[in-house]
């Protein structure tokens, strides 16, 4: 046979088509050397399968989607409200917005006084008022951002705890199902063994009876 050792490996490793398998089987019927070679290959293959498998030292598991991969909408809001640099930027933007809105609402006017020019912001634009408005706007913006961050963190924690509980429950349920199947299999096995045992006892009894009968005769 052409290239016999490789064909025999292919035969052993189930890599041949139906026609080739038949050809090899025909060859093996007539060739002692072929059968001996196949037996050697079979022994090598069987020996290789004795390589022990190791347990993975640490199980691999992934956490749930909503935490790692939020939807685009969630990603936008979380990004806009959650991160520290973005938090500072949003607070600053809010302050600027209040400043410009306030400036526009109070209509600044430039007027000439006796000893120079003066800038006034409408009737209520005293310097003290403006500073007070700044302070209030900053406090309001930072407080709102803090509240949103706390709210987001609480939602994240709640989500994580819920997922952990669900995962553990699912694992417990899976183990229980497997245990039930094992118990069922064990029960079937036990019944089979009992039935065999009974049969065996009957056979022994019959043999005993037969031997006693023979002895009596």
């Amino acid at each position, binding site marked *: 046979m052409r290239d016999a050792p490789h064909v025999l490996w292919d035969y052993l490793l189930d890599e041949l088509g139906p026609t080739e398998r038949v050809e090899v089987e025909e060859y093996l019927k007539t060739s002692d050397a072929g059968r001996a070679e196949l037996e050697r290959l079979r022994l090598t293959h069987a*020996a290789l399968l004795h390589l022990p498998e190791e347990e993975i030292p640490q199980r691999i598991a992934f956490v749930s989607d909503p935490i790692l991969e939020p939807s685009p909408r969630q990603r936008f809001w979380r990004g806009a409200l959650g991160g520290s640099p973005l938090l500072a930027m949003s607070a600053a933007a809010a302050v600027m917005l209040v400043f410009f809105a306030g400036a526009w609402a109070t209509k600044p006017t430039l007027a000439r006084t006796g000893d120079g020019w003066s800038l006034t912001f409408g009737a209520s634009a005293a310097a003290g008022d403006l500073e007070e408005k700044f302070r209030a706007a900053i406090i309001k913006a930072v407080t709102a951002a803090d509240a949103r961050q706390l709210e987001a963190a609480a939602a994240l924690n709640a989500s994580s705890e819920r997922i952990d509980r669900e995962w553990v429950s*699912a694992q417990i349920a899976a183990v229980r199902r497997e245990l039930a199947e094992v118990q069922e299999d064990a029960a079937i096995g036990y019944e089979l063994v009992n039935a065999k045992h009974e049969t065996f006892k009957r056979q022994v009894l019959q043999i005993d009876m037969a031997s006693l009968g023979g002895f009596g005769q």
Partner: protein
Amino acid sequence: MIFRGIEDRDLILRARKGDVESYNMLVSRWEKRVYNYILRVVGNRDDALDLCQDTFLKAYRGIAKLNEVERFPQWLFRIAHNETTSMYRRTKPVFEDENLDQSVDPASLPRTRFEGTSFGAAELGLAIEQALERLSDEQRQVVLLKVYQGFKFDEIAKITGCPPSTVKSRLYSALNALQGALAMT
């Protein structure tokens, strides 16, 4: 006998829709096989665990693009193979690559005789480990994928990215070397 209530196919389909628990179940079914494959290739438990984690992370990211669900094992092992190869490229000295594909002379391998009762399973396992380590990386990968993972030649060709004829020649020379090393009689 315990039967699997849910087939891999169902788990893959659920994982593709973003069901992480289904993916975790899939991982629990395949992690030992993938870990052992990588471990035998790289020969280091820490690296093997890292690469195994990377493999499953990449698989998770890419599972939505897996069109043929039935080809999940080949696809997963291709990722594992690529991860392993990438690590080799990062860490192995270049001059070693020149010898990657050369066949191993059986005479250069330690000879170990085992015949039934005189050779225990643990000793046999150790002898096989040593014989495998003496193969080139490519030969060892092919042996692992064929003998221990049961892939077909054309599947191994896709996993390793080389022609089936190359896979066959690597396997035959590796098996020849292993047969010589184990001194079958």
